């Protein structure tokens, strides 16, 4: 048997798995998992079949789709628990990231400039729409990571507020 901690859509779950069985919430059920392609699994839980498609992680979470439902699932490696927790706490506080791939069309602030909560920092264009990325809280611009014309990928840091 092996134990797993998972975070499913923000909720914590403990899961114990063994050959042909698993237990969660104190309830044990029979299971059978077959691989059906790259990231595709046929999972039988108590005789009932589920077809699940798993996508590679973004921000540490997997995306699992089954029967028109989408779950965000983080499988927490027990050996990395403290690190993961620390990371989760530190991330994103003062960093403004690109939510989608696009192109920087304007940088509205300079390093060292003080900004208010909600103030526009960088404008990113994608699919003919311009999106203003704003400060989540007031502070001082610690760094600006992009210049107008730069292409950005989803998750790239645009600026940091200290």
């Amino acid at each position, binding site marked *: 048997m092996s134990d797993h901690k998972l975070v499913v859509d923000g909720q914590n779950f403990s*899961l114990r798995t063994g050959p042909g069985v698993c237990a969660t919430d104190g309830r044990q059920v029979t299971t059978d998992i077959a691989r059906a392609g790259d990231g595709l*699994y046929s999972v039988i839980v108590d005789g009932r079949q589920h077809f699940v498609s798993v*996508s590679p992680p*973004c921000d540490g979470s997997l995306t*699992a789709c089954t029967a028109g439902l989408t779950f965000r699932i983080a499988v927490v490696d027990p050996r990395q628990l403290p690190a993961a927790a620390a990371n989760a706490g530190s991330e994103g506080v003062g960093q403004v990231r690109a939510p989608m*791939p696009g192109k920087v069309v304007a940088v509205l602030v300079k390093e060292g400039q003080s900004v208010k909560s909600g103030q526009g920092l960088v404008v990113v264009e*994608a*699919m*003919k729409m311009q999106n203003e990325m*704003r400060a989540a809280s007031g502070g001082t611009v610690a760094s600006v990571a992009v210049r107008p014309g730069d292409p950005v990928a989803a998750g790239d840091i645009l600026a940091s507020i200290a």
Partner: protein
Amino acid sequence: MFRKILIANRGEIAVRVIRACRELGIPAVAVFSEVDREARHVRLSDEAYGIGKAPAAQSYLNIERILDTAERCGADAVHPGYGFLSENAKFAEACADRGIKFIGPPASAVRAMGIKTRAREIMSAAGVPVVPGALTATARPSEAAAIAHELGYPVMLKAAAGGGGKGMRLVGGPGELAGAWAQAREEARKAFGDPAVYVERAIVRPRHVEVQILADEYGTTVHLGERECSLQRRHQKVLEESPSPLVERRPEIRGRLYDAAIAAARAVSYANAGTIEFLMDEEHRFYFLEMNTRLQVEHPVTELVTGIDMVRQQIRIAAGKRLEFSQEDVQPRGHAIECRIYAEDPRLGFMPSPGFIRRMSMPDGPGVRVDLGANEGWTVPIEYDPLIAKLCTWAGTRQEAIARLRAALRETSVEGIATTIDLFRALVEDAQFQAGDVDTEFLERELPSTLARLPEASGSARLAAMLACVKWTKEQAGSKTVRPARAGSRWGRVGRRSMLGDWSRDE
């Protein structure tokens, strides 16, 4: 009939036109920008040629390059689709200069309807009701204030050259007018190169109802019934249906609506396919909004209820054929609904979500029509509009069409990028939508509570998902490298952000 047709567009609408050409036995030529080399419209065409770099100005809007390609491959007609060059009178004229038939209305009709104030004047003269307000642009804020005072607040400022929500401002009272007037002018200048703005009475909680017309080049004009497109975000349609649930409840409106549409088309000597858009107020009075002088994104719902292939008719009309049916032959049957599957995240204010499509499945079977503009394993480019597919259902009644849509959405998935699929899953559970009781502001007003109506997962499905993720993680630990998702994270952490600019005019 034409020898060969070049389609000056991309995505699902280029695919749609390719099919109509092929059914008429006419070879269909696709064009593509550098990022679209592997796009679906290229894969499905009979011939395809590159026309330049990714930015539309260097490819899909490059009139010379497109017409050179048409000449080189022997195309004697061009279909512009929607957006891009479809409502560009200069393009229509450039086609004519080269002896290539533009599949659309005469340039004069495009031009007349392109200037909103001019269109209002023509409609007013033709007896088509327009929203009360000025017929011409106002040169000074004081003049605007006088008109607004006379109309009564709230009023709407609109760009004379405009469309697509740009240069538009809602003004609640006299104190807001001067500022809004300056902003609207600046936005209009930027978007259209023309700052002219005019004043209309603002319609409160309006519904968007439009009438599809087809006219041949010999003066015969028929309508193909109405569509309702009140579900919008940023003045852009998201879901459309035919017939309109409102008009179904108030059938006495229908005849007047169709008469107004036919009169509007005749007033500009219209030929080919066109749509007259109306706003309907809470007392069910309708007002001319604008005429779209091209094929609409939402034409499939009309095709589903009438059985008439609109793109086929467009091509026949452009080839100088007479309409092959009369008004009496148009006999709508049942109800159709279209969902626009956009690469956008409805949970993040419809933030664009281009990127790599890792996996995709679309429904099929009875009463389902999909117009797909993307492929699994393809990257949705950042340069163009976010429409990747249209999902339509048809059934005998609206209620059954909604039930079918719910079932079809269950089978619809796009993995790798965020889409509006979940929004539609929530909408079909919404009581107001089910009752056909929505206005154009409904979606932005009710979005959070609508999204909250997404169906709940069963414990068994969740457990299966958890087990699959544990299995996946073990498999990855066994292999050497873990590749992150290629692009298009919907989970990227962002500060608060808002939409700044907006869509260019392509619906």
